[in-house]
């Protein structure tokens, strides 16, 4: 099965942000549509605030579970520097959905390393498209930081080979089963994420027009 018939989505962030759960929900949506899917993580000690990268591949028949550098259709960065760390996994010119929130690790606080000045600019300089928005601020505005991963799922929903409503349904199905009182808030978070992505796409378009003018 040639690569082109498989959708490769790489979701990255830090242990505890809900990266693996978000990817699992995405996988459930793809499976509900009849796709084959494989999902894999590099997250050995992720519970301790380390890097998490979650690979999702879906299509007619998936063989290797791993996305190779240069082949991801979509990169979803739950944290700014993590989006930058993994951007070379995208196919040339590919799209990054990026939470601009910065989570600074102890090695930076200790002065051993610097946090990149402008991760967004670094990614754009490498020729990738970026839709950037502050998912943490959106989640806080809705009243719960834990809504961040639903915001990110909402942002992804217009960049999948299936309608946004399918992904929304996969999100809500989980909450209906586990935390029914959180269904409404998660629907709001999903829609806010979707709107943030659309606004970011619009901003980018205006930037380009400004540059051309």
């Amino acid at each position, binding site marked *: 099965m040639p690569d082109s018939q498989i959708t490769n989505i790489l979701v990255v962030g830090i242990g505890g942000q809900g990266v693996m759960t978000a990817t699992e929900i995405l*996988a459930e949506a793809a499976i509900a549509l009849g796709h084959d899917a*494989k999902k894999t993580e590099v997250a050995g000690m992720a519970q301790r*605030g380390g890097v998490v990268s979650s690979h999702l591949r879906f299509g007619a028949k998936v063989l290797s579970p791993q996305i190779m550098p240069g082949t991801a259709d979509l990169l979803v960065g739950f944290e700014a520097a993590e989006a930058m760390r993994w951007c070379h996994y995208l196919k040339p010119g590919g799209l990054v959905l990026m939470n601009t929130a910065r989570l600074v690790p102890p090695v930076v606080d200790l002065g051993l390393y610097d946090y990149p000045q402008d991760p967004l600019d*670094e990614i754009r300089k490498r020729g990738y498209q970026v839709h950037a928005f502050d998912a943490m601020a959106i989640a806080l505005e809705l009243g719960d930081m834990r809504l961040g991963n639903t915001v990110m799922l909402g942002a992804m929903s217009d960049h999948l080979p299936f309608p946004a409503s399918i992904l929304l349904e996969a999100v809500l199905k989980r909450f209906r089963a586990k935390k029914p009182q959180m269904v409404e808030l998660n629907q709001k978070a999903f829609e806010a994420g979707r709107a943030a992505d659309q606004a970011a796409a619009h901003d980018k378009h205006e930037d380009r027009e400004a540059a051309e003018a």
Partner: protein
Amino acid sequence: MAAVMPAPSNARLLLSGNEAVARAVWESGCRVAAAYPGTPSTEMLEVLSTYPDMYTEWSVNEKVSLEVTIGAAYAGSRAFCAMKHVGMNVAADALMTLTLTGVIGGLVIAIADDVGLSSSQNEQDSRYWGRFAHLPVFEPSDSQEAYEMAKVAFDFSERLQVPVILRMTTRINHVKGLVTVGERVPHAAAGFKKEPARWVMTPAGAGKRIPLMFERDKTLLAEAEASSLNFVDEGADTNDRRVGFVTAGPAYMHVREAFPKAPVFKLGFSCPVPIQKLRQFAATVDKLVVVEEVEPLVENELKGAGIACIGKDILPRQGELAPNILKPAIARLLGEPVPEGLAAPAPVFPRPPTMCVACPHLGVYYTLAQIKNITISGDIGCYTLGAGHPWNALDTTISMGASMGIALGLDKGRGETDKDKRIVAVIGDSTFLHMGMQGLLDIVYNGGNVTVLLLDNRAVGMTGGQGNPGSGKGIHGDERPRVDFARLVESLGVKKERIHVVDPYQLPVLFKTIREEIKIPEVSVIITDQPCVLIDDYKKQKPYEVIDEKCTGCGNCVDVGCPAIHVTRREKSVKPSGKEVELQFVTIETTACTGCSLCVQPCAPDAIVHADLTKPMRLVRH
């Protein structure tokens, strides 16, 4: 995990390799399953513990877990044991004689190799155990195969009365894929039958069993040659025979992904190697390439049988053999242009795992970092992170429980340059019970001068807080007798006055206790007694915040190493002595802080106070 248990037969589920094996073990009518937690194997027993109609346990170590399942298999029950690769080093003593007795009930031993070292101290290849112990090895290459092979393994084990090793790797254990599941078929225990010549392995008894093991080798080889788990997967282009691959495990998927047209010999029953079948396959291709993670086992066996092949001379002996490793290697082999160089990764700081906010180990490492002239023998668990910044307070780590013996060796083997060094050993509660207490007994018995810090956080923290005899919780979270560590070490022979139970959040007491005990030339045990912050026993306290105007930038709190403390500003300053220092002004992320007070204690200007909860919580935004 919850999705696994009630799922009806024929359901198609998204399961990790661990979940798939657990489901298959349950469906196979297994009655007893045991394991010690270890990444990437842990979820097999976690999931099994949610199924009805079978006994599951967290054992104190892998050797005991294997012995429990051997006993169950002797009694005629189907039994299952899971462990990470290094666990088998511990269990091998039982394994190497188990192979002589064989079993009655089917026994499947899943060994999870951490290829790629996501969470382990080495990258050993468990397929060696098949060769060493004369046992069959099955190697699945995704969740569906893991499920199917585990079921085949039980039938096979019972039919040949031989334990089967299911060799998995991280890229099987932790990858989720679709699996079609079936139903549980109960399997009654045949009952234990006294047969000393078979079950009592004295030299005379074992001597008679060894020739039977060699006879079984021949049967196993014939089975491997005939097994449908070993097959040729012709590629999309049957005319292109320039390269044929021999591969197993996750590498099979990588080979198929990278070379959809090439012929592939897929090994599922990979030990003993089906040499005749492979010889026939080799004759159909120009070049035979063996793609195996980690060691060149199949490659060397093929070469030994006179079958020309290529393997580790073009492929790495370390890490996974993913398509991006395979493609350039094969292109070079064929003299084809190597695929173009890809975009280089952007330079970003490393983000190593950290201790949790308010972790009780922070107090221990903050204190150890303040004490000079000590050598610290460490062990395996979250507290291995003490080797990192800002503490740099752990000097050795090799294997479970090794902190004890190594500390004694550092003491007895000390040279002239170390004569004034104090030896400290640091070990967690579960690791101590796993394999550390024998080492402590050795220190006591042989008169070692070691100060042991026993970090009792009532959990196997690193793997997710599973119960153990130190937590007093069983695999189902039920109450079990809890080990009293102070009485345990006393009964091993540590003097009562040399045993201290200390709260690791009380820094002055901890500091004073360690300082005093390292001066005394005999063995001491200091037990720290606060729960892991990730388990239910942990109770959050009111968070703290920094009064910005009071912070003098001394950085003492930064040395605690808590991830909730962030440096907001750095300044250079010259002390009256003329020495230049860097000031670090800080803030506390009140949304993350759980009020352990470790940072409050070293704060010279009393700038850290309980947060005013009437104001919005402080979230650090950079």
